[in-house]
């Protein structure tokens, strides 16, 4: 039974992750007064890329090919550890969230290496920014999850998110969870390359971060990268949601449905943020991420006062 629920969650993630992208885009379209793209547009784009040929620069080596593959493998395995809607994950053990964070790190390491493999100065620039921002986001994520572990007296993701339920915010740990939600939202935005850290729609190579790193990837390679990014958004969204809106209705299927709706709500929220905010100046981004770490540290102190 446990295994089945884990597999159901993974299948849902694999199928529905691109939909988050279209929810964000539709929300932005509403704000801009446009009709917006069809709901299935991200799927069509992936399908189109898969069918295309691939162009390899003569500078590149095997590292360039390995980047997308390792990236998707790492995110896929991390998904096996992350629960949604209070359901148990496929695999769960104390300290598993560290493995999740480091698996995302593996994907990033290979993607950054692949970017440097092209020898392009733009991609080098993007890679340099990516490693800086992710190095600052990592403490915020891990400290937030540690604070949750201390509040829920459990060291595994499944245990943590099973212990946090609708009653939790009204307890003494409530203010701490409020802070953790803030910190994790910042990490969510930064890791998924959204405004105010990065602009996914920018068309100037000099200002891009994530997009510029994958300039040289094409065809199925690029499809893998896009899909991995969508899965990563699903994954970090589930982590955020479990702390931000732990609604439980007593029935497992309703809980799962609430989780899916919550993920959609997060996507809408991202769309609202992107429509209403400007991007931060690059020099201000580190401060934004450090502030997230600080929120999580304050939360730690509140949980264990």
């Amino acid at each position, binding site marked *: 039974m446990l295994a089945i629920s884990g597999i159901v969650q993974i299948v849902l993630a694999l199928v529905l992750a691109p939909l988050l992208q279209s929810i964000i885009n539709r929300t932005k379209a509403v704000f801009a007064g446009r009709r917006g793209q069809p709901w299935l547009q991200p799927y069509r784009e992936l399908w189109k890329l898969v069918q295309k040929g691939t162009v390899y620069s003569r500078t590149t080596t095997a590292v360039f090919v390995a980047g997308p593959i390792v990236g998707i493998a790492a995110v896929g395995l991390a998904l096996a550890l992350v629960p949604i809607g209070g359901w148990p994950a496929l695999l769960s053990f104390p300290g598993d969230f560290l493995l999740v964070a480091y698996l995302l790190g593996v994907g990033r390491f290979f993607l950054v290496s692949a970017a440097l493999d092209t020898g392009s100065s733009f991609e080098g620039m993007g890679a340099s920014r990516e490693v800086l921002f992710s190095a600052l986001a990592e403490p915020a994520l891990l400290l937030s999850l540690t604070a949750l572990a201390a509040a829920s007296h459990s060291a595994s993701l499944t245990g943590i998110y099973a212990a946090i339920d609708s009653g939790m915010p009204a307890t003494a740990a409530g203010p701490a969870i409020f*802070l953790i939600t803030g910190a994790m939202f910042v990490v969510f935005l930064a890791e998924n390359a959204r405004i105010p850290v990065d602009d996914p729609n920018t068309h100037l190579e000099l200002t891009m971060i994530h997009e510029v790193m994958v300039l040289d990837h094409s065809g199925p390679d690029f499809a893998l990268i896009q899909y991995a990014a969508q899965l990563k958004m699903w994954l970090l969204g589930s982590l955020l949601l479990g702390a931000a809106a732990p609604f439980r209705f007593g029935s497992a299927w309703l809980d799962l449905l609430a989780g899916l709706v919550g993920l959609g709500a997060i996507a809408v929220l991202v769309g609202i943020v992107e429509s209403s905010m400007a991007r931060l100046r690059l020099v201000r981004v580190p401060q934004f991420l450090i502030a997230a770490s600080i929120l999580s*540290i304050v939360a730690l102190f*509140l949980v264990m006062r």
Partner: protein
Amino acid sequence: MALWLDVILVLLILTSLWLLGSSRLRACIQAVAFQGIMLGLIPLLCAWPDITVRLAAVAVLSMVVKAIVLPGMLRRAAREANVRYEVQPLIGFTTSLLLGIVLWGLAMHVSRQLPVTMLHVTPLLIPVAIFTIFCGFLLIVSRNTAVMQVIGYLALENGIYVFGWAFAIEDPLLVEMGVLLDVFVAVFVMGIMIYRLSREFDTIETDELDSLKE
């Protein structure tokens, strides 16, 4: 009510951190005004549910002064001196934030050592008070614009106010009047100083006062 008090205290922590990390004067003044509102709510929540008229009056008065009057004066001073940003602080904004978290740890530590047993509401009151005081000091020491220093002074006063509430919960009026008077004098003096500075030097960087040394 302890939960709501905790929420307010956490908001106080966040506004203090905001003061440390922001360079925009207008945002800082708003933050300090927000702190004022929070401070006004603290006595009400502490004494809930038996609120006397006197208590309510004190709360409203302090809210008016701390959230409307003083920020308004500051806003005017900033506008007349024509400054909008703290440009080059002695300690950078990110470093200030990191120092802030160290100060928070320190405040927690200090408050554990304090032999205070009369806290019947929340154990968070004392550390937050100490932390706000520390932040005020840090702002005064590390910022160059006079407006920012006044904001630091206000934060300091806010901390003392919270501290006063932790102890003088029985008869707060004395502490209250003392604090208000203190603030008035401070803002008065600082206001004059800002005005004079901007008139004499066309700037309110207190660094420029160095040139008076000779």
